[in-house]
């Protein structure tokens, strides 16, 4: 039923690492998420596991007690052979507002010169693609978004900046992402998103999950200012579309 060869390894005594073939592939990510949802709902129900998917792997962590690795590995391989599609998985497509003014998109000019595309063309490329969240890490709420078109694939900056502002939208290699807080960073900055990606005061501090999709849409500076205030006071309504995975 499930065709990928998966490898399972211990990761200390409290964690186990499951790896799918080593490539960045939406189909692999979907298989991982389908499987982890299946084991969460049907196999590990009631147990306090933390599940960290990223790209082609998922790490299962159990802090209460040491894991019996051999036993769990056998079980996981058996569970993977079962019909994991019995659980229905949904994912969200988030439409995130980004202001690409050069005040925010401080590297747009340089990228335009490097690539031969105008700034408008770069922005159009960035907003016309739908990206997949392959992982969340580095900082709370920092999403690794894959699916960046070739024309937007630029090397990281040779020297990281000591401070990239919260909300900055960056490009690096095959990835794009949003800095959830002020942080040092080496990505090329092309704009700023007015929606906070991580809010520890919110009921759900990070609305986005691995496997979700993101599309950016261009807003003006005036809209940015308005949405930022609306987000702060909690009345900004995020645009989301629920999709069957």
């Amino acid at each position: 039923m499930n065709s990928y060869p998966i490898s399972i390894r211990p990761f200390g005594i409290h964690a186990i690492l499951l790896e799918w073939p080593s490539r960045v592939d939406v189909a692999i990510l979907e298989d991982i998420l389908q499987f982890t949802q299946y084991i969460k709902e049907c196999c590990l129900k009631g147990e306090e596991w933390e599940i960290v998917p990223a790209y082609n792997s998922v790490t299962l962590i159990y802090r209460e007690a040491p894991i019996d690795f051999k036993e769990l590995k056998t079980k996981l391989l058996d569970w993977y052979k079962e019909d994991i599609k019995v659980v229905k998985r949904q994912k969200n497509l988030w439409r995130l507002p980004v202001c690409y003014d050069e005040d925010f998109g401080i590297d747009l000019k340089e990228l335009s010169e490097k690539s031969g595309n105008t700034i408008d063309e770069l922005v159009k490329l960035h907003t016309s693609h739908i990206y997949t969240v392959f992982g969340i890490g580095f900082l709370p709420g920092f999403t690794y978004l894959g699916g960046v078109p070739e024309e937007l694939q630029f090397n990281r900056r040779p020297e990281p900046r000591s401070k990239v502002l919260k909300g900055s939208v960056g490009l690096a290699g095959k990835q794009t992402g949003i800095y959830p807080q002020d942080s040092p960073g080496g990505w090329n900055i092309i704009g700023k998103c007015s929606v906070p990606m991580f809010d520890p005061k919110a009921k759900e501090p990070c609305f986005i999950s691995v496997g979700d999709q993101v599309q950016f849409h261009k807003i003006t500076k005036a809209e940015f200012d308005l949405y930022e205030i609306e987000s702060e006071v909690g009345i900004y309504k995020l645009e989301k579309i629920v999709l069957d995975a």
Partner: protein
Amino acid sequence: MLKVLKSGLFTAVQDIGRYGYLNKGVPVAGFMDGVSAKKANRLLDNDAHAAVLEITMTGPTLFFEEATYICMTGALLSATLNNEPINNYEVIKIKEGDILSYGKLEKGFRNYLAIKGGFKTPLFLGSRSLFSSVTKKNHLVDGNELEYDECSHFEPKISKLKVDSFLDEKDLMVTQGPEYGHLSDKQLEMIFGKKFSISNENNRMAYQLEEKIVGLSISMITSATLPGTVQLTPSGKLIILMKDGQTTGGYPRILQLSDRAISVLAQKKYGDEVRFKLNA
């Protein structure tokens, strides 16, 4: 209330940590040296997860507004109560208006000050542990006030512990990390054949080691990391992630420290030596 008259070098409220948000990139945080923090809580008959103060190197000066009991474990840090010397690893009765101050660090790096019932500071995402992305500040500052419950009478089951040899340990027990199999014989010999010293890049996020070994450049796709994960960079640097460490990473994860080894390491400071011991 506990009033922080002087905050010391780096004093932070920590409990057992923040569970359930690793998939959103939020590190677990919590006691760096869980072994010592739990001892302090146990002597006071507290829950194992009760919030304590983690005091790094230089201690604070603290004013107690209500009676309670305290206990200090972890690093040996000389302390006085109203200018009278008091012992670490012992339950101490506190009266209203007492002032606790600290002196010289004798051994180790992080001291744990537990209070009867635990500190009752606000919970953020289920934990009181300070971590800047979640709680804004990652350490206390002069003038902070921390809530605790008054306790005027308590009879500890055990009132005193011997300071064990824990702070002198150099061996870090490790198991193989996910990318252990990529290490060459030469690299293994370097890792397990010699001592390493702690670099000045050491904090709650990660401990870097001073000595480099032959690097590892394998193509890695970003994947989960844990407290105690030892990463080997292409340039040969060894980085040991700690409790505030990032939750995913792209460097090979060659070793994984045991829970106890994380505590042992948390008591090391710049220049101290450690050795890796593989637990088969």
